[in-house]
């Protein structure tokens, strides 16, 4: 088996030191992911290495890290893809807690802020068996928001976003996308409520349309498109507001 050099940014808060880099040699083949490599380090070389993971199939969103300065999921990035040594660091723009673990609370707060759920009057169905009916939603209606519903909350787009780097209060690509997803859902009636969040200073207007968020998204959610469409909606909303005076 071949081996590759992994440079990992370490940070052990209880030792009071600044972050530092540590190298490890890891054996690999065609199927060795970055996550496999981290697991190898933890199990064979240094049990104190700390990182998050769970599904190892690119769907739970736990394992985001910077690989050679680009935000990626560790479980669907492979050592075979890298020529030279591989540098692994915690996701950019989030406070680092320990080694590759960052504080995800700001991200979760932003998600929660946009009221990411269907808002309508008949959400709970009664216990009467006869009363159990779904809404109708045609494939074309679903197509409108489907792509934006694929976000796994991995946070990679926040690490790619210069605006979030400057201002952590910016709701950011994933939260704005989620808001847009519900706004576009034919079953939803909550757009008005969400627009207030989206249109405030930390909402869509903070975005300067760099577009890097969509480039790094591992699920092709295209948050940049969602944010841009959100701007159009927000502009309309404001105009209507002006006319109504």
């Amino acid at each position, binding site marked *: 088996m071949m081996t590759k050099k992994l440079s990992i940014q370490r940070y052990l808060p209880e030792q009071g030191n600044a972050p530092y880099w540590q190298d490890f040699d890891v054996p690999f083949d065609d199927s060795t992911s970055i996550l496999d490599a981290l697991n190898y380090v933890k199990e064979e070389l240094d049990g104190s290495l700390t990182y998050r993971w769970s599904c190892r199939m690119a769907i739970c969103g736990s394992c985001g890290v910077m690989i050679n300065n680009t935000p990626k999921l560790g479980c669907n990035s492979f050592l075979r893809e890298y020529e030279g040594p591989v540098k692994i660091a915690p996701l950019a723009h989030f406070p680092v807690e320990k080694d590759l673990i960052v504080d995800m609370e700001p991200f979760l707060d932003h998600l929660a802020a946009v009221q990411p759920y269907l808002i309508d009057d008949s959400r*709970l*169905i009664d216990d009467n068996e006869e009363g159990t009916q779904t809404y109708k939603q045609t494939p074309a209606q679903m197509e409108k928001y489907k792509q934006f519903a694929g976000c796994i909350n991995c946070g990679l787009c926040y690490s790619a976003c210069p605006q979030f780097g400057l201002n952590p209060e910016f709701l950011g690509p994933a939260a704005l996308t989620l808001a847009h997803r519900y706004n576009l859902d034919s079953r939803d009636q909550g757009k008005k409520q969400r627009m207030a969040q989206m249109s405030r200073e930390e909402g869509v207007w903070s975005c300067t349309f760099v577009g890097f968020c969509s480039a790094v998204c591992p699920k092709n959610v295209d948050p940049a498109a969602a944010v841009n469409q959100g701007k159009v909606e927000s502009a309309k909303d404001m105009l209507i507001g002006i006319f109504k005076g």
Partner: protein
Amino acid sequence: MMTSGSVDLIWPASITGGAMQQQDIDIVIVGGGGAGLRAAIAAAESARKENSQQRIMLLSKVYPMRSHTVSAEGGAAAVTSDEDTLQAHFDDTVAGGDWLAEQGVVDYFIRHAHRELVQMERWGCPWSRKPDGSVQVRRFGGMKTARTWFAADKTGFHMLHTLFQTSLKYPEIERLDEYFVLDIAVVDGAVAGVIALKIATGELTLLRAKSVILATGGAGRLFRFNTNAGIVTGDGMAMAFRHGVALRDMEFVQYHPTGLPGSGVLITEACRGEGGILVNKDGYRYLQDYGLGPETPLGEPQNKYMELGPRDKLSQAFWQEQQAGRTGKFGDSDVVYLDLRHLGKDYLHERLPFICELANVFINIDPVKEPIPIRPAVHYTMGGIETDANCETCIKGLYAAGECASVGLHGANRLGSNSLSELLVFGRLAGEQASQRAATVAFADSPALEEQAQAQKTRLAQLYDAQGEENWVELKRELVLSMETGCGIYREAEGMQDTLETIRNLQARYRNIRLQDKSQAYNTELMQCLELGHGLGIAEATCLGALERKESRGAHKRLEENFQQRDDVNYLKHSQVFFNAEGPAQLHWQDVDTHLSAPAERAYGDAGKGIKQ
């Protein structure tokens, strides 16, 4: 002084001393997967309906949307179309479980599944639709009729995110994310709270509670080759077990016939529901040789025939082909092939986009152009924490729901797409029951509780201090390998006896374990050690049940000549394994509720024609 593997630190106050955080919570839910979130919402609704103020706390060792439910691909079952009947879903489930399901429970389940899926739709779940806008259903293995609701091939992902996002609407649902629950506290035969570790800091918290719901998921990580996420380590099962609740039917472990070689990543059964076929290295559809024929024409999948036979039979057929030397090789894995090419690019990209992505990324194969090499992998834990039909265990106020529970739905073999519906139906029931109880009882006295919390603190401190020779990585490897060898697709006494001895030996060695990482913040090594400790207890229950069940039923297949058939005279019974602090775990047998459908032959393919099921 850094960079070495061993980092020794002086004890911060949280584990060795200092005051423990304490809170009073009416309903504590352990687990933020589908079952836990559904329970939380049900508890909140229930309390609102009764106008009762209740604090609901959901704890999870990962952020809720990271839970394993997120990986489920295929779909959730409920009787939906006009041609379908409740009776048919009942019969499929009971026969699929080889008559070891609790029939009253199955009856409740099939009656409530549809309502729950509709409820998910009302909360925004993007179920795949027909052109007229109504919900689409797909075929699934072992189900007579198409009745599986799906959201492309990311059903679990959409369900989990819908539930999580909906839960945000309820301010009364509080969360402690990334808290590892160490134990439940029990006072006078009733649950009194939980003790949890805040992963970020290593601080301990005692939550006093009136009701506790365990929704901690399965235990697939006990086996080397599996489709499960790394966190699926059976923690809740181990906690209930140590407090005297039986683990029931643990010998029934489902192998999924189609995992990717190497990683074990799942290729959903929906591939076969959509018309995918399985062939051996000679390109032959071998399933027709194992009682699942005759061969169905390409592009015309038929329920309960060939590729749509139940999972246990398909996995067993793989094993037979492997023995006969008719499997191919991918890396160092023996494999057969799942061929989807005839479905065409457009259809595959519309119906099975995630599968295309997974095959491309993980084994560099494009299913549009090449068959996917696959092999069976451990997938689902049929057994679990024994509960009654209301999800309550023998400890009052302690409930269990979802994959960690044995409410009695799956019997000896779970049908694919029944468990996502189970999470909803029984998650809800558990939440409602827990809320009702919390409205009527008082908190337990603190001193007895604090004593138990203190005991956890001591246990952790010992683990930190231990200077033994053993390393968790080594022990874990021996465990998962031994489980695979002794308790795999086919089993025989000798192998299981060896595994049982290995487990007991590992349990003894576990006491000599030594942590490399002695830090408090995010000590993931400590977490993995604790999970291993849980696994060692459950593994014993699994192996003991398997060894003593001297028959073949559902997912449990014995190689010995006398045990190759189902034996209703002696084993139409649930196994119950009880923890024993003094020595080996104890096994008992419990009657099965068969009051609605008498045991009959379980047959598929043409052999199943005419048999009532």
